């Protein structure tokens, strides 16, 4: 890339960073977009869970006794190596039970805390087991984890370099020029979403880097604790199964009360390790609804006697880490802040999409004149990287409402459909070229409407019923889908108008 022809460009640092920003932004943009998009969805993962699991759409309950749930839980976890129960809170209306078995199988089910019934398995990973982990491992294990960690570092660098290469950060602070030269508007939108949301973008990408330490510096702990490997797990309790049967589990409510004396709040997370064994113990973790920090602390009790076995130490380092972790994880219950995270996440998506689009727009004429194919290929890549994930998500939701409950491996079928729709979006973009923007915008608009209609058709808690019953979790997803549909349709109409103007002016030039 050559130096920008501008007399006020000092060259040097700005030129070098411009190169970095342009090419890393383009190449890593697709990865960053899917990470931002799934992260934005993960902000409302519990609510999307309710939408994808209609049986769990229940009114929020005040508080539930862990002991009262035990008879129901016992049937589910019989013979397991370990299980955990996450009690309902003011965001989730159902109790969740996860159990892992010796043959490697894993069970995740929900319990209605009012009727004390195990809710039917709906054969879906929902948002919390698909979009949420996708945000940090791209559904591809250790490689995905590493790619996401790398992307977080690059995102911080892109934010910083973007600020440095921005020529008029204060003069253009409030400037959005909606003009006939679409490239100008794209760059203004890129600058605005980057500058006005810079505090959020820096915060989220920096905490993203900070909480990934162990992924890209796996040897850090070995270096830090080389003299005393035991110190790394100091304060953490674990023990092997004794191999002989143990007594019955003590009252979990009593343990929750004792944990409250220690933490000031009753834990909603209860885990039993080696159930039924003499070495069985209970792990409790503190609730995270009322503070920013996401606590990584735990307390342990003997399952049969209730004797306290230990509590993880609360050090300054841990509290600092938990604070950074909590800022990123948004597990606190604060609806305005949750919505601000959601909108800011969308602004991040807009930032990445407009950045990639600007690359295409600023080179289109030159490439066409020189007969180069770069722009066409990159444009299809950009469409597949930005609208593709939206369509794939809608494919997932529509599959969730149409696949019969008896489908074999229903949960993984949904994930296959997510990826197949994404591939189809890419193929369509390559085939249709520039017109694919408009086509796919219409597809998003139609897909959102279809998802809302299917939800009303296949469940008895469609949008209107959900609102009148006060089930805001699923109603909120429906309303957001409708809003997305409206925005997508509006964009498609605007794109059509822009194309007409562009083709009209192209004709007048040739005539």
């Amino acid at each position, binding site marked *: 890339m050559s130096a920008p022809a501008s007399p006020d460009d000092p060259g040097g640092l700005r030129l070098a960073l411009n190169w970095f920003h342009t090419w890393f932004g383009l190449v890593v943009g697709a990865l960053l977009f899917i990470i931002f998009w799934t992260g934005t969805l993960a902000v409302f993962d519990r609510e999307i869970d309710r939408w994808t699991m209609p049986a769990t759409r229940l009114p929020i309950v005040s508080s539930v006794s862990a002991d009262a749930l035990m008879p129901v839980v016992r049937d589910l976890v019989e013979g397991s190596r370990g299980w955990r129960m996450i009690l309902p809170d003011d965001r989730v209306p159902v109790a969740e039970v996860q159990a892992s078995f010796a043959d490697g199988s894993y069970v995740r089910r929900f319990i209605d805390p009012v009727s004390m019934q195990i809710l039917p398995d709906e054969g879906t990973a929902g948002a919390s087991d698909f979009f949420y982990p996708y945000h940090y491992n791209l559904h591809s294990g250790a490689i995905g984890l590493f790619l996401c960690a790398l992307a977080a570092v690059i995102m911080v660098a892109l934010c910083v370099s973007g600020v440095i290469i921005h020529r008029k950060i204060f*003069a253009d*602070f*409030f*400037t*959005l*020029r*909606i*003009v006939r030269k679409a490239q100008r508007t794209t760059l203004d939108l890129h600058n*605005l979403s980057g500058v*006005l*949301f810079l*505090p*959020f973008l820096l*915060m989220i990408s920096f905490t993203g880097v900070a909480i990934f330490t162990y992924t890209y510096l796996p040897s850090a702990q070995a270096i830090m604790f080389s003299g005393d490997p035991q110190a790394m797990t100091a304060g953490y309790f674990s023990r092997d199964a004794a191999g002989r049967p143990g007594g019955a589990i003590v009252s979990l409510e009593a343990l929750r009360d004792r944990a409250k004396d220690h933490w000031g709040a009753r834990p909603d997370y209860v885990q039993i390790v080696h159930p039924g064994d003499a070495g069985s113990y209970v792990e409790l973790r503190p609730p995270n609804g009322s*503070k*920013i920090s996401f606590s990584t602390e735990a307390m342990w009790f003997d399952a049969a006697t209730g004797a306290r076995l230990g509590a993880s130490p609360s050090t300054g380092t841990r509290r600092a880490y938990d604070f950074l972790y909590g*800022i990123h994880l948004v597990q*606190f219950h*604060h609806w*305005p*802040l949750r919505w*601000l*995270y959601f*909108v*800011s996440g969308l*602004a991040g998506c807009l930032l990445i999409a407009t950045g990639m689009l600007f690359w295409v727009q600023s080179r289109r004429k030159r490439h066409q004149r020189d007969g180069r194919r770069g722009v066409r290929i990159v444009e299809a890549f950009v469409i597949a990287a930005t609208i593709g994930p939206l369509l794939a998500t809608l494919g997932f939701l529509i599959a969730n409402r149409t696949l019969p409950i008896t489908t074999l491996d229903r949960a993984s079928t949904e994930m296959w459909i997510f990826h197949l729709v994404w591939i189809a979006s890419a193929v369509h973009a390559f085939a249709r070229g520039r017109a694919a923007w408009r086509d796919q915008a219409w597809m998003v608009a139609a897909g959102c409407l279809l998802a809302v209609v299917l939800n009303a058709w296949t469940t008895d808690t469609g949008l209107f019923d959900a609102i009148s019953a006060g089930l805001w979790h699923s109603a909120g997803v429906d309303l957001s889908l409708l809003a997305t549909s409206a925005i997508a349709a509006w964009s498609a109409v605007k794109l059509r108008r822009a194309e007409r103007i562009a083709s009209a002016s192209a004709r007048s030039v040739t005539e």
Partner: protein
Amino acid sequence: MMILSIAGGLLVALLGFAALGLSQIQHWRVIGRQRTTMPPAWLRPTGWVLVGVSCLPPLLFEGVAFGALLWIGLLSMAAICVVTIFCRQPNSP
């Protein structure tokens, strides 16, 4: 209380950003009839003070931790509102 802190913070930040924006000649010229005058000098300091003061409602009502996060988000929202208002003016470029 939550409504008060959010509405208060947002309103003050909106006024602050509007003043800062209007202190820039290109936005001053497209607002209203004053195409020839220069923006008054007091707009810019007033804008900065208001943007600074807008942290008080969230911090006072929501505490330092939640208040600071809320303030960061509200600043972005207020700035976006001002940009939207400016770019919808009939004389806007």
